[in-house]
């Protein structure tokens, strides 16, 4: 081979390309001219053509283990498993600071207030696991509705929810009772405890709400202390609770250093189990603990929730001062 003439060595790559059918017309012509005068290269071309033909028949031949059915079935089941663990999330600015929304194939899985700075990746991994994928487009519809809600242009978030981040059955019951509180209403931690039939567990209720995976959506901001103090929210960010309540027409006033307080004498009052809302001074209402009551900031909210004005104190005729 080392004795191959220069012209043969030069033509060799073109000869290969020609045999494989991928040479340019120009190269094909050069090969044709060359092999016309060079029997060795002519034979080489024939051999390469034979190799190419053999490879081609190899390509067409079905292999002995060419059945992909089983692998496909396994893949389908593994994909289903992956899908069920997968969460897509988006992070976006809001009037309450940066928010994260995560959704799974079951529904909305997580809403989180984010600190203004810090590593998002580590936080997301911790909150959502390894199968979290950022996809702003997939959460855009949710983002738009949540912003409308925060700005008071929407009173309801009818989202399917993913319950898998509930920590216990107790927490699930607490969150369900909290979700049943009407827009524009508040009650106390003990009030939620009473509603789930565990009246002495108000501390556990507070704890369960502290780990609410879906704040705003499950309105834990409507649950306050028995004295009317807002007490706590999203760590130490009780001002967010005050803002969310203000949007709904519940006005809490500054109390002490950092807290805010809902004043019962400024709220329309519903005795649990009743269908009529009252002025706070009606009958013996003022003697009841907040846990027996639901308070509304405005008559409109009480009526939107399906309650009528009390026929003895007539809040419709004697509304509270705005």
């Amino acid at each position, binding site marked *: 081979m080392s004795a191959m003439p220069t012209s043969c060595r030069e033509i060799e790559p073109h000869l290969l390309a020609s045999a494989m059918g991928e040479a340019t017309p120009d190269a094909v012509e050069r090969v044709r001219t060359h092999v016309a005068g060079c029997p060795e290269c002519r*034979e080489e071309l024939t051999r390469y053509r034979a190799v190419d033909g053999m490879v081609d028949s190899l390509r067409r031949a079905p292999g002995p283990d060419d059945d992909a059915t089983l692998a496909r079935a396994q893949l389908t089941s593994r994909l289903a498993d992956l899908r069920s663990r997968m969460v897509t999330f988006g992070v976006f600015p809001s009037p309450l600071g940066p928010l994260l929304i995560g959704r799974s194939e079951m529904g909305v899985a997580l809403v989180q207030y984010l600190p203004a700075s810090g590593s998002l990746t580590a936080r997301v991994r911790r909150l959502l696991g390894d199968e979290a994928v950022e996809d702003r487009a997939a959460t855009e519809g949710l983002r738009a509705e949540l912003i409308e809600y925060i700005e008071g242009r929407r009173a309801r978030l009818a989202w399917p929810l993913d319950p898998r981040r509930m920590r216990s059955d107790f927490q699930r019951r607490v969150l369900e009772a909290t979700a049943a509180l009407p827009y524009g209403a508040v009650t106390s931690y003990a009030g939620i405890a009473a509603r789930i039939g565990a009246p002495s567990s108000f501390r556990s209720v507070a704890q369960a709400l502290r780990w609410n995976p879906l704040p705003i959506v499950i309105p834990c901001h409507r649950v306050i202390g028995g004295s009317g103090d807002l007490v706590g929210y999203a760590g130490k960010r009780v001002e967010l609770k005050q803002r969310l309540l203000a949007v709904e027409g519940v006005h809490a006033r500054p109390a002490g250093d950092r807290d805010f307080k809902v004043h019962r004498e400024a709220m329309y009052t519903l005795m649990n189990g009743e269908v009529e809302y009252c002025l706070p001074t009606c009958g013996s209402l003022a003697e009841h603990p907040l846990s027996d009551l639901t308070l509304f900031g405005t008559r409109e909210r009480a009526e939107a929730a399906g309650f009528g004005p009390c026929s003895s104190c007539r809040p419709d005729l004697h509304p509270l001062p705005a």
Partner: protein
Amino acid sequence: METGLFSQPGGTGVSMGRVMAEDAFEAVVGAHHAEIRRYLLRVTARPSDADDLSQETFLRAFRAYRALPPGANVRAWLFTIATNLGRNHFRAQSRRRRAYAAVALEAPTGAPDRTDGRVLADEARVRVEQVIGGLPEKQRLAFIMRKMHELDYAEIGTSLCCSEESARAHVFQALRKIRKGLDGQLSAGTEPRS
């Protein structure tokens, strides 16, 4: 009222339809899984490895699918993932590889009938497969992608992290070795051998 919180199917507000781009990916699996598995079978010569690696290819693809720009060449992208998985697999099993490659895909059964021309062709084919099995990794992968799956050189270059020219050089080099490996079995009688 309370029990419905986490069980309302579909809800009413926001469509969850696009969540995982499921339908689109189902179509990708349907269109390419069999071919990717065949590619990996040719690459690994082991059905069980081809099964595992083809599944892994699509699981990885599923995770990354949403980030793929619209109009991307999905098939070439899947070949790139499969190629990388195949190469990692070899790295992990480099000592065992040659032993398996040597028995690559062969399926000769029964005693060959010497008078049948087809059998001679089959023998040559088995020989081609053996030579392919013994090629250096990049040449082998490039050759399989080009000649068995008809990817173009740019796509092969992407899969192997090399230039289009290098991809072509790998394929040509593979072809030369196969041609040498078949010396004596090709074009018998056309020319006297020196």
